């Protein structure tokens, strides 16, 4: 990971964070489906990143979203959980040729169907942790499952759209 890609990642995250807070904070489709698009910055970190820096980055991202959401700790816990699972999951679903050095797990470098397999379980795990923490003590588990399922689908759809629209097609050498 060179200096330029770090810079790009930070810029990407700040942009997604701004969108998250300014536009998506109070958006909930049918009162059920939330969108946590800032997770895209976490999902698109290079495959080769080690899990310790990954988890620290995730924790920081979570905290910075938390302060705006007034839910201090919840996003941090859930994002760290996502980061913890991410590398295991990447190993499990690695394509037959393995990953290239510096590969980014995005639609452009792999395929849309691969991205869905990659992102959906991680987003679902994130939402599950987040809403469980949020509903802790109210005992309303059906609501937690409901919200998690639809939120992860909504986030996934938006993540795909963002990538198709704004990410340059990888040049074929």
């Amino acid at each position: 990971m060179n200096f330029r890609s770090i810079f790009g990642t930070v810029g990407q995250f700040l942009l997604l964070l701004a969108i998250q807070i300014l536009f998506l904070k109070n958006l909930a489709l049918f009162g059920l489906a939330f969108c946590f698009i800032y997770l895209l910055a976490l999902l698109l970190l290079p495959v080769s990143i080690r899990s310790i820096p990954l988890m620290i980055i995730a924790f920081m991202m979570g905290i910075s979203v938390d302060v705006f959401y007034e839910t201090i700790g919840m996003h941090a816990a859930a994002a760290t959980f996502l980061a913890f699972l991410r590398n295991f999951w990447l190993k499990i679903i690695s394509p037959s040729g393995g990953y290239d050095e510096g590969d980014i797990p995005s639609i452009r470098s792999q395929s849309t169907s691969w991205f869905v397999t990659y992102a959906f379980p991680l987003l679902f795990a994130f939402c599950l942790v987040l809403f469980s923490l949020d509903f802790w003590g109210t005992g309303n588990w059906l609501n937690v499952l409901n919200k998690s399922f639809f939120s992860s689908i909504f986030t996934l759809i938006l993540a795909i759209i963002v990538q198709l629209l704004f990410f340059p097609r990888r040049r074929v050498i």
Partner: protein
Amino acid sequence: MLRILQFLYNLRAFILFVFLEAIAVWLIVSNNSPQGAAFFNSSSKLIGIVLETQSNVSEFFDLDDANIILQEENAQLMERLNFTSAQADSSYIELDSAFEATFEFKGARVISNSLRFAQNHVTLNKGAKDGLKPGMGIFNQQGVVGRLKMVSENFSVGISLLNTDLLVSSKIKSSDVFGSVKWMGEDAKKAKLLYVPRHVTAQAGDSVITSGFNAVFPEGIPIGVIREVSPSSDNPNYLDIDLELTTDFSKVGYVYLVENTQIQELDSLYSESELPNEF
């Protein structure tokens, strides 16, 4: 020894994971105790400024509604003023100090508000500089909104009524029977009135107002209207009462804050007599 260290080193990712999660859970817990100290939240300056700018823009589109509501309220107040203004009379009675005003009111604007989670909060654009203090009640012309939790120099954060942690002492207007209103974490329009005994006759359509017992809100601020009354399923001694909240939380823009100037005296009385003072 070396093996143990090696073992721990191999587990380092998992250990860091547990450590970070522990920090996060600690933050959640320390932030959720109603009066607990919190390090970061939206009452800090930078975040407050971002949220305020955002609401400045979105508020602009709601100005029409806000104006109409203010006008209606002005008209009501005018009418009431007409009633209570002193008549010219030769006799003059000095009021007893017991009738002294015990509540002080202030106004503020909501700059951030959520209603989709189980623990919702509101952020206001005024803080300690404007005389706000933790524990003040928040309401608007429609009804109760919440209770102030944290105050910084320029901003403040309150627990919304849409928060499963907040109980508001209240009563049924027609029969004066009191209970506690609690939001159950589902619909932003519905709440429950708890601890109403079974022998009470409550009907759909009765309005529920603050009781004045909790010393946060004065008596008579609307909370909701009873929608359904049924015997409680888990405790046969109480009724299960569903309320429809009068406050439209999706449109809370300008709010009033109320402070009980005698709350310290009341609190010390409660703590001396060892009674819990619920919100």
